[in-house]
């Protein structure tokens, strides 16, 4: 397997930790200041003990008694400079970049469940940036490039594996759409490649390109796309943000938004009232519910999106394959499971479980393209609630309520966007208005008709 060796293992840093060995030795002689300089993480006020190969050796020598909790579990303070609702990837990344890029550390992230327990922990971990529209390419490529060294930045192995993402063209229409996207990618400087069925067969030997129902006519290949461990992305951001002073408050459900004539003044939660002048809602499928509390409506609908995994098998596919026509998205996890993402249900749903027929449709179609999976047993199936916008592009922007910011609408493709989305949202929360990366995704595009149409660009029925 070409890329699997890069992934390292588990929560203790793995490969990513090794690069910091020299820095760590230096810092041990240079004291705490040395650690701060070596890591580049600003103001480690709460003192995060670095993960490294030395740390493993040290702990091995003392029965692993020295590992700390990865993040603090504080009670909420009376007031924060900014409150982020939702401790998923996007919310935690926003908090991290607020602290790291803008020096704003008096921040709370409130979460009704546990961090990373929503769509962050339910997706199929695909990372790519070969979108059609310029503003989409900008934010997704920013995100993908941040993923490249995120393990080093966070000192937490997120197992980013740029194994390549292959998007199949299974209709003539889709093939033309990928040609158009490929040209757009070239103009934007995003590395992607239009590939023939023969080249696809080289990249994915287990694929059947002949059809008859869903022949593979070509594809769009992004070699630096790939996967990462989704839980680790949430945990890594949480740990690094917490170390810089961000309070992550779990099991704290927001029950109301307080506001006066000038704008937001705070929130009501199951752990009491918290005051703030800046509130950023980053809650994916529940965005409409939170917006309703704040007093406005969003152009989103919440639906269930499903995924499933097979029993683990030996390595057979070392890239991600996306069959958009049939809504089947497959990769092989480091454990060996075939991870399969399916299509979204057509009706509004908040139950985090989808309809069985979608699983059946996805698997039935994938079996034609990957005959070898026909005898696989599927182990688990689950759903997440995704917030779909009309143009299938996200919303990052200010809202009708002064001081309330929104980051939502990532729909079925939010995981890949976590670092870039957090980066852009942190800029907006810090400045009070979005900068260039987020500006096109503002809420008023639906009034102005200024769509960022990735719905048509996907060349499939949504």
């Amino acid at each position: 397997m070409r890329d699997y060796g890069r992934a390292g293992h588990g929560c203790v840093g793995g490969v990513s930790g090794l690069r910091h060995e020299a820095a760590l030795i230096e810092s041990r002689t240079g004291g705490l200041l040395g650690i701060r300089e070596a890591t580049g993480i600003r103001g480690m006020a709460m003192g995060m003990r670095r993960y490294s190969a030395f740390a493993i050796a040290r702990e091995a020598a003392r029965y692993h008694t020295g590992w700390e909790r990865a993040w603090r579990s504080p009670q909420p303070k009376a007031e924060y400079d900014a409150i982020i609702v939702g401790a998923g990837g996007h919310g935690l990344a926003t908090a991290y970049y607020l602290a790291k890029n803008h020096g704003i550390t008096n921040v709370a992230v409130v979460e009704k469940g546990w961090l990373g327990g929503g769509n962050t922990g339910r997706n199929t971990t695909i990372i790519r940036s070969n979108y059609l529209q310029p503003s989409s390419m900008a934010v997704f490529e920013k995100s993908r490039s941040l993923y490249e060294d995120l393990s080093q930045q966070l000192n937490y192995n997120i197992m980013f594996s740029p194994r390549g993402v292959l998007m199949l063209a299974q209709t003539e229409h889709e093939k033309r759409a990928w040609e158009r996207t490929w040209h757009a990618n070239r103009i934007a400087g995003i590395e992607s490649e239009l590939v023939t069925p023969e080249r696809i067969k080289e990249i994915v030997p287990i694929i059947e390109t002949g059809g008859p129902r869903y022949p593979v006519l070509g594809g769009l290949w992004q070699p630096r796309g790939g996967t990462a461990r989704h839980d680790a992305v949430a945990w890594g951001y949480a740990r690094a943000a917490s170390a810089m002073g961000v309070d992550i408050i779990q099991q704290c459900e927001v029950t109301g938004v307080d506001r006066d004539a000038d704008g937001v003044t705070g929130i009501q939660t199951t752990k009491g009232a918290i005051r703030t002048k800046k509130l950023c809602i980053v809650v994916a499928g529940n965005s409409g519910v939170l917006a309703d509390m704040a007093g406005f409506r969003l152009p989103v609908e919440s639906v269930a999106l499903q995924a499933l995994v097979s029993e683990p098998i030996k390595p057979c596919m070392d890239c991600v394959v996306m069959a958009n026509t049939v809504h089947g998205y497959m990769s092989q996890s480091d454990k060996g499971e075939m991870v399969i993402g399916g299509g979204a249900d057509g009706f509004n749903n908040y139950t985090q479980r989808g309809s069985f027929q979608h699983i059946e449709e996805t698997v039935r179609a994938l079996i034609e393209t990957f005959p070898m999976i026909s005898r696989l047993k599927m182990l688990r199936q689950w759903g997440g609630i995704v917030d779909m916008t009309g143009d299938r592009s996200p919303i990052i922007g200010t809202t009708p309520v002064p001081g309330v910011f929104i980051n939502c609408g990532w729909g079925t493709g939010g995981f890949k966007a976590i670092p870039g989305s957090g980066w852009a949202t942190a800029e907006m929360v810090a400045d009070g208005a979005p900068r260039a990366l987020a500006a096109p995704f503002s809420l008023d595009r639906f009034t102005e008709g200024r769509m960022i149409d990735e719905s048509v660009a996907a060349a499939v029925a949504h």
Partner: protein
Amino acid sequence: MLKLTCPNCGVTGEETEFHPGGEAHLKRFGPGSSDDEFRDYLFQRVNPRGVHFERWRHQYGCGKWFHAARCTQTLEVFGTYTAQTSEIPQNIIDAIKSRRPDWEPEA
């Protein structure tokens, strides 16, 4: 999996026999409307976590459209009714209230 009864032909089937059509009782805004009205008509769905009124089509049956009242949090279907109305029928309101005593129809 949802089970719906088509009020047009009376057949009860599971959801693969039907096709969802989004929020019901939309008021159409076209030429002459304001930008905000047109945006609301096109995009601003209610998207509630709870009671939802929506359109369905009996796609693999009689082919006709109808309305359903359903809970998006439990997937419970309270009832279905004709699409030829802009008012929610009283028997549907009663059915919802018997299951959700705190629920009130929006004005």
